[in-house]
């Protein structure tokens, strides 16, 4: 019986105008987004290659004679663009791109999107030549398609599951057959999920084929695994919206009310709630200084040190050797204090965003967004991991420089004494190089787990509620 009903429902759904319109819409969006992603990704890879080549040149120069590296010698440690950005971009195109690493000090400064270090070492904010797009509500990736479009389709498919049958008068007919109420709800739920599975599957296939054909993205097994995890998460998420549709259908008398209620739920949970916490950023508690202000605080730290050691330095001003010894001793300390200021604010910024994300957890759309971003290894989770790697690399590089300089320590970039470094050529292969390591799948799943658990709880709660409510529904 239930199999028969399910078949009828699925066929009816798939042949409906609703489904057709949405299906075409979703296919169009997937195609458009794939094209946008591919052109974007190509550009990102080219930029990454340019930066890597620049880093390599710097290191070659350094290996010929370490004294070639002056106080301002730097490398740009940027995040490697990954194909997973198509699964979940998580605003990586608008967030910081990596770090600017000063080779002979502890300096690791955030390289934001609007900042570009040109060949001659100037900072050029590229705002006017660049296209200034208004703050985007969403980013073009697969997550958006499921989070936004498929959830909408889910509500539309489920909103008249019960009220519609009642209005058509078929509900009583069904009941006159020996069918349990719980079977009916389960059937409605399953048919909606099956119907949603079709566009989801197709968009995943299109995405995979597009990436494969373009041949710029090598489809490793890792990517396919991520895609599979993404599909599972999507089902968990869409199930919430199907249940919300069913919920609206069971708490209202007419289809019209049910649809309006469902739409408002959708608007609130998908559009309004995930985006509103940004307003709280204006609160004093969540306020952080601007980038420029942070840099001036960093400068102030240096000045404090200068004040502190002024007397000592003045006393040594005729003794060059002793003066440089002092500089070499204090230099790393100054560097670390300066870096401490930067790190403190960066940590704070990330902590603030994480707190605001917690508020968002009421919304399944946000939970889904964070879960996919964790599984794909993008977004703020990616940045934190990258930061750790960059820090490790920085410390490793500094200790390498110490090692080649013997007992003398390289000093701060501002009172830099190049003589503290060796001038003999070093083996290029021996220099530590930065290579971003991908986050392990286990770690990613661990990060996603709380979000997944909450989504599952959402499902469970709605499921029991819908069953309970429908058990008492007046079928007349």
């Amino acid at each position: 019986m239930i199999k028969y009903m399910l078949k009828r429902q699925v066929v009816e759904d798939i042949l409906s105008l609703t489904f057709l319109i949405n299906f075409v819409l979703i296919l169009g969006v997937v195609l458009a987004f794939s094209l946008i992603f591919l052109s974007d990704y190509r550009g990102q890879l080219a930029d990454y290659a340019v930066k890597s080549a620049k880093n390599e040149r710097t290191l070659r120069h350094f290996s010929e004679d370490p004294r070639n590296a002056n106080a301002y010698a730097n490398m740009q440690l940027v995040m490697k663009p990954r194909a997973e950005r198509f699964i979940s971009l998580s605003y990586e195109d608008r967030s910081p791109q990596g770090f600017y690493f000063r080779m002979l000090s502890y300096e690791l400064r955030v390289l934001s999107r609007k900042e570009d270090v040109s060949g001659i070492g100037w900072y050029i904010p590229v705002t006017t030549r660049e296209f200034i797009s208004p703050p985007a509500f969403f980013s073009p990736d697969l997550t958006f398609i499921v989070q936004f479009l498929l959830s909408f389709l889910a509500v539309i498919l489920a909103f008249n599951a019960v009220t519609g049958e009642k209005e058509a008068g078929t509900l009583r007919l069904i009941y006159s057959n020996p069918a349990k109420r719980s079977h009916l709800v389960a059937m409605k739920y399953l048919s909606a999920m099956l119907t949603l599975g079709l566009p989801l599957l197709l968009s995943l296939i299109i995405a995979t084929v597009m990436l494969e054909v373009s041949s710029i993205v090598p489809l490793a097994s890792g990517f396919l695994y991520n895609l599979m995890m993404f599909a599972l998460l999507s089902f968990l998420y869409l199930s919430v919206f199907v249940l919300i549709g069913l919920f609206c259908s069971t708490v209202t008398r007419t289809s019209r009310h049910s649809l309006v209620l469902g739409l408002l739920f959708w608007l609130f949970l998908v559009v309004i709630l995930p985006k509103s916490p940004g307003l709280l950023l204006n609160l004093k508690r969540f306020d952080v200084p601007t980038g420029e202000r942070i840099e001036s605080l960093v400068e102030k730290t240096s000045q404090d040190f200068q004040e502190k050691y002024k007397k000592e330095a003045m006393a040594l001003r005729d003794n060059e050797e002793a003066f440089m010894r002092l500089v070499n001793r204090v230099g790393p300390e100054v560097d670390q204090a300066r870096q401490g200021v930067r790190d403190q604010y960066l940590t704070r910024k990330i902590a603030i965003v994480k707190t605001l994300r917690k508020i968002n957890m009421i919304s399944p759309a946000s939970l889904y967004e964070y879960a996919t971003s964790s599984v794909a290894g993008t977004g703020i989770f990616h940045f934190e991991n990258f930061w750790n790697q960059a820090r490790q690399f920085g410390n490793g590089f500094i200790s390498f420089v110490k090692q080649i300089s013997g007992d003398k320590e390289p000093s701060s970039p501002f009172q830099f004494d190049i003589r503290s470094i060796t001038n003999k050529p070093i083996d290029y292969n021996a220099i530590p190089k930065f290579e971003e390591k991908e986050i392990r799948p286990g770690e990613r799943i661990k990060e996603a787990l709380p979000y997944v658990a909450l989504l599952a709880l959402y499902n469970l709660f709605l499921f029991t509620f819908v069953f309970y409510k429908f058990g008492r529904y007046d079928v007349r």
Partner: protein
Amino acid sequence: MIRTIIKREFLDNILSFKFIACVLVAIILTSVSTVFLRSDYLARLEDYRTGVTLNERNLKEVPVYSYLAPKVFKEPNPLSIFVSGIERETGTYADINHRDIPASLRGGLIKNEFSHMFSFFDMSSVITIIFTLLAILLSYNAITGEKEEGMLSLSLANAVPRYKILLGKYFGILISLAVPLALLFLMGILIVLLSRDIEVSASFFFSMTLLFGLSLLYLSSVAFIGLFVSARTKKSFTSLLVLLSVYLITVFLLPLAVNGYAGRVTSLRTRNFEANLPSVTDAREKAIEQSLDKIRSPRTWLLPFPSRRGTMLLKRISPPEFLDYFKKTVRIQEKLMEDYAVKIESLREIDDAAAAAVRRWRNIILAMMPSTDFTRMADLTAETGEDNLLLFVSKLKTYWHSYVHYLDEKNAFGLKYFYPYPEEFTPQEKDLIERINKDYVEGKQLAGYRGKYLEEALGVNPEVQNLDLSGLPAFVFHGSNITDKIGVMLPNILVLISYNLVFLLLAHFSFNRYDPRKDA
């Protein structure tokens, strides 16, 4: 008769669940966002005021032209409380400096780079997202719903002309939208008026009125589209489905795709600056080197470019032939820097032209859709959009030219560039010069001089005369006045008006042929 229809429609609407729910959400969201954005505006205003006073104070204490570093600030607009636009992302001030033509603003207000996942709600997005939905929900079943309930045949049986029913419906919907919208505007204005720190001028009220009118024009076009779709379909559900798809596409998807695509095209086409900058700067360095080669350089014992006060004092007590050489080189070097700034700018201009071409196409495509028309008009009214920023930057460029003209006129790279003190030496200075020259002649190691006479030189403090900068051109930016604004947004207004007219006619004709029977 038409009045009765309007009244009935209006009462029906405002008592419906969808109306109450949407308006409630809109009011909560607008009040919360207005309160938060108001405090954000106040913070920016404070930054602006302190920046301006600090700049004025700094300009009063400029002994030499190398110290002259005026800043130009962009005043935040009180309307950014309602239409935040891109103002918060684009920076607040620019440094004016003869070496580089400012092409962008500094001091961006996105303080937290990781917060992009929460974009901001303001009143304009409440209108485009929630009021559009409300307009759709009110109009989708205007005709189909009546038919389904069997009311349409009844109305028509009363010898009411069809156009009157249509207009009655339309005005009923429009009034039901206008009343909560007016409420939101009044609430917003009240929040602004109640805060003592915000001074509002007459133009604020003008702009708010304009914004209200434009919102209504936009919502009216949505209502007409809704009526048309309702008059073309047999079932309410089909009508709603079509309208919601249009809503999703025009409010969320197309702006995202068009802006995203245009941005990518622009970034591909604006590589000229990055590609050619190194060659131009190399040429500049070479030109400087060549012209400096012609001047015979004396033996010097100081770095050629002092920046700190201490070294500057030492400069005063350095040998006269060195000072002479120094003045000449500075004049040549800085003049060349200034000339090359124009060349660097011409590199940017090619990119800017490419970006402008893409922008034009994007604007044309976006002007096709009522929702994006409204967004652009709101940005223009509030002066928080891209057009305003570009206008500001172009004003900055004009200002740079007048600034440089001023420097040239004052012969700024001459005597008064690095040399703030009177020509006459004090006795202590004479003594110091004598001693330094003696050491110098005896051929002592130069590196050993680090700070040897510094303390003594710092002790010598001849009176510094500040420059008279009364002739310095002032930067004035008032934005555009209201007629200019309307002129710029005229195409968008015309598109919206034609949307209104076309869909009025389409709805009229469709409704005339509409089959009012319940079972049809």
